[in-house]
């Protein structure tokens, strides 16, 4: 059977009719897609994403084990070494430096493994910057990313270790609280 162009097809009886049998002009097979709504949607999407764009990137890697507390009077997070304190362990640069249960039992004021690791990081930073003749770049900034249910006895030891290793500018990482005091949905939590 022959392929015919879309359109009305009349029966054999009317094929030769002057009224029905011969359409006024042959219909084009080409059809254009209306892309205007698509472009509108793209423009709105791009504007929304640009408004939410953060040039600093991801400073903290969000973990499922750590639920940050909320605060409203916060500053912008700076790029600095991050000490993660979950309910189970203390991690710095992806390395576990102590278990919370053990740290709770001990009576020391610092966490030796954490202090050592931070000293190494400081030395690396200073060596790198000395090689580039950029002395004085070290400010001692450190971010503490702790779970909100951790007790102060652990935070105290982390803070003391940071200060002892030369990281005296301690910042607590928090979630930005909304105006109504309701938690914003955390849409992108990564391990």
């Amino acid at each position, binding site marked *: 059977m022959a392929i015919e162009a879309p359109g009305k097809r009349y029966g054999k009886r009317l094929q030769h009719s002057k009224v029905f049998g011969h359409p006024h002009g042959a219909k084009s097979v080409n059809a*254009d*897609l*209306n*892309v205007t709504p*698509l*472009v509108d949607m*793209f*423009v709105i*999407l*791009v504007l929304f*994403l*640009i408004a*939410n*764009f*953060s040039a600093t*990137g*991801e400073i*903290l890697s*969000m973990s499922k084990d750590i639920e*940050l*507390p*909320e*605060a*409203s*009077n*916060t*500053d*912008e*997070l*700076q790029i600095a070494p991050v000490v993660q*304190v979950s309910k189970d362990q203390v991690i710095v640069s992806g390395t576990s430096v102590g278990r919370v249960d053990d740290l709770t039992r001990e009576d020391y004021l610092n966490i030796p493994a954490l202090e050592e690791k931070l000293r190494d990081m400081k030395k690396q930073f200073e060596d790198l910057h000395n090689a580039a003749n950029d002395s004085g770049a070290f400010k001692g900034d450190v*971010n503490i990313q*702790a*779970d*909100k*249910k*951790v*007790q*102060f*006895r652990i*935070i*105290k030891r982390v*803070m*003391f270790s940071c*200060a002892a290793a030369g990281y*005296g*500018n*301690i*910042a*607590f*990482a*928090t*979630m*930005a609280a909304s105006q109504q*005091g309701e938690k*914003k949905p*955390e*849409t*992108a*939590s990564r391990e």
Partner: protein
Amino acid sequence: MAGGMDLGGGGKGGKKPLDTNINLVPFIDLMAVTIVFLIMTAVWTQLGRLQVSQSGQSAQEEQPQENKPPPPSLLITEKELKLSVGGLQYDPIPIVKDEKGRLDLKKLLENLGKVKTEQPDQASITLQTEDNVLYEDLVRIIDACIGAQFPSVSVSPASS
């Protein structure tokens, strides 16, 4: 429509139609690439930081002044908050939490407001915290202190 600019047949002597169509295909391509890039680099979590210092160190460089009154001190225990300024001790504020487990800090903010009225130049406050206090509560109190115009917060363990 999106197939290019229609400038008419171009026949000799014929009038050119005025309606033109803009080719949207490159625009859509650009948009699609931009959207993919922005989605991949998007940071969805709104994070912030609270600057603190340990007692004995100051977050902001501060020279001790002889005439300057000592900073207010807030003792944080599991059950109450005790604010003291110099020799004056305010009434202990019992720890009250709402149904979401958040601290009720109205009374503390009231007292901090009074301190700020008495010492408008005072920007420091020391938080003496007991070991059993939850980090969430400590952060809420630091947040309240910064909100009450005490931006230089020192945290120290409570002397038992």
